[in-house]
């Protein structure tokens, strides 16, 4: 008996894709069982809402439900392009997201290079600890801090008035200043965390490259340009291409907590617009259509970006 079962047992960890289903289930049934909890959750809470997307093609009324509401075809989608507000929200989303992505890639690279120039390990670790921290604070917390220090009588204005004699600036209530405020605060919260992968790459560079460059008489600046940056390039390309998929994500948590009616013209993004137009105003079908429009375009962009990342840098999701 023992000797008969043993070959089957080691089969657990060997290639088994060619097994017929019957044999496969007999050996690997526990693995299928292990997948059931996750599968149940995904089917209900990720695929379930996808069924609800049909609301985008309906004049959805909560009391009639999906089965009872009238079908109106593409009307909701046509309305997206007719409403000035929704077009403005799409435009704002693109502008804010694109600048966030560009700044959010360049600054962390720059900071990672500067930080790697600090030789005192204690100081380096302390700086790292502090700059990672804001990433873990919730946007509610950060918004609370910002509303306080950026307000008309807040710390920043206090400083500007006393030192430079400038009239108080309303950072969160001025449509002109809202986008820069959003972009800088997002950078403040996240640059440290984004820096981690670049730091890891820099740490992994073979020191002999630097030694060779130094023997050839390269200055530190030249070493950074000709050794450090090229070594970081594959990672930069992967992160830059993958961020293409985030082009319609301008950061709901942040905007929702910082904006107010004064800055809707420049600060309202797709996600906040969906929230206001649907849940607050009851236009469920329209809100779903805007959401589907966003998810659809994002999906196409993500697929394209993963393809590019795979071709250019051989990056795989799993």
């Amino acid at each position, binding site marked *: 008996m023992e000797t008969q079962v043993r070959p089957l*047992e*080691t089969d*657990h*960890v*060997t*290639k088994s*894709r060619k*097994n017929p*289903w019957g044999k496969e289930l007999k050996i*690997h049934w*526990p*693995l299928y069982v*292990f*997948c059931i909890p*996750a*599968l149940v*959750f*995904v089917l*209900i*809470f*990720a*695929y*379930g*809402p*996808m*069924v*609800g*997307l049909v609301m985008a093609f309906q004049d959805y009324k*909560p009391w009639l439900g999906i089965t009872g509401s009238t079908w109106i075809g593409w009307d909701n989608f046509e309305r997206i392009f007719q409403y000035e507000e929704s077009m403005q929200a799409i435009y704002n989303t693109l502008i804010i997201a694109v600048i966030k992505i560009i700044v959010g890639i360049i600054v962390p690279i720059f900071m990672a290079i*500067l930080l790697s*120039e*600090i030789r005192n390990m204690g*100081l380096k670790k302390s700086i790292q600890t*502090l*700059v990672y*921290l804001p990433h*873990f*604070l*919730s946007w*509610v*917390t950060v918004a*609370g*801090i910002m509303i*306080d*220090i950026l307000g008309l009588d807040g*710390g920043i204005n*206090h400083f500007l008035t006393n030192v430079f004699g400038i009239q108080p600036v309303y950072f969160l209530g001025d449509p002109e200043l809202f986008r820069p405020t959003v972009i800088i605060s997002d950078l*403040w919260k996240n640059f440290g965390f984004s820096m*981690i*992968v670049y730091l*890891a790459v820099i740490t992994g560079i073979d020191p002999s490259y630097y030694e060779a460059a130094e023997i050839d008489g390269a*200055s530190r600046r030249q070493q950074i340009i000709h050794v450090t940056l090229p070594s970081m390039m594959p990672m930069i390309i992967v*992160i830059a291409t993958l961020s293409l998929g985030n082009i319609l994500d301008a950061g709901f948590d942040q905007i929702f*907590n910082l904006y107010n009616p004064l800055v809707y013209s420049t600060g309202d993004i797709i996600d906040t617009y969906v929230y206001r137009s649907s*849940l607050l105003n009851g236009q*469920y079908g329209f809100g779903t259509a805007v*959401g589907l429009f966003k*998810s659809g375009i994002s999906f196409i962009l*993500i697929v394209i970006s993963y393809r590019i990342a795979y071709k250019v840098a051989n990056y795989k999701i*799993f």
Partner: protein
Amino acid sequence: MYHKSKGYKIFSAFNHLLLILVALSCLLPMLHLLAQSFSSKTAVNGNLVTFWPVDFNLDAYIKTFNNSNFTGSMWISVVRTVLGTLISMFIITTAGYALSKDFRGRNVLMWIFIFTMLFSGGLIPSYILVTKLGLKDTIWSLVLPGAFGAYNLILIMNFFKTIPKALEEAAFIDGASFFVIFRKIYLPLSLPGLATVGLFIMVGNWNAWFDGILYMSSTEKYPLASFLQTVVVQGSAQSMALSQSEAAALSEQSIKAAQIFISTLPIILVYPFLQKYFVKGIVLGAVKE
């Protein structure tokens, strides 16, 4: 050679200065908040508080902890975080273990999970689903919808893949089942990985605020982050439960500061443990073979 040159020394001095300033910019807002929370109303309203308390007192904290809205929300957050983390870890580790193996249908399953990263039903359909399932106004509306995370699954799967196959083979020969191997070999050996992902999930649960506002019909059922959102962003003095005489004596800003600080404290406390692991976790998640 280069570090002896004059140019590099000047650069280095500026570099140190710049980075120290940047690092301080991440710390000072929290210190400012802390200082405000311990200061008197006149000092706070007169903008006299920078990074050190003026007229030190604990009134804002006493008031905050006497506010049943606040403590109630805090309790909801604790329950939500514990439940949410346990459920998430359970479904992610089990699936992650299975998917780190090779079996028929694995790739199909993997794509079913990955697809959730690429496409979603969006806000309104999710809201309607949770409502239809009757989860509204219960803690389950906060815990269940977000319990599965494809990114965390991939992280865990990668941790499991680093465990040598020989260990599993040896255990099989000794007669251990998949369940035993999972519990006795994989879970203990990938503890650093589980800690990283677990702490991320904990922080995520603790910080989540929007679902509370979305699914809870009254502020008494809000988790702390949602409650805080009504206080600091919507500026609802009602949530602070101040009587008129108290409002005269206490600065609204001090109480806000105290509340923000208390809600952030758990994050600051787990942060040292988190930091120990997350760098490795992130790098492993981002850079793969």
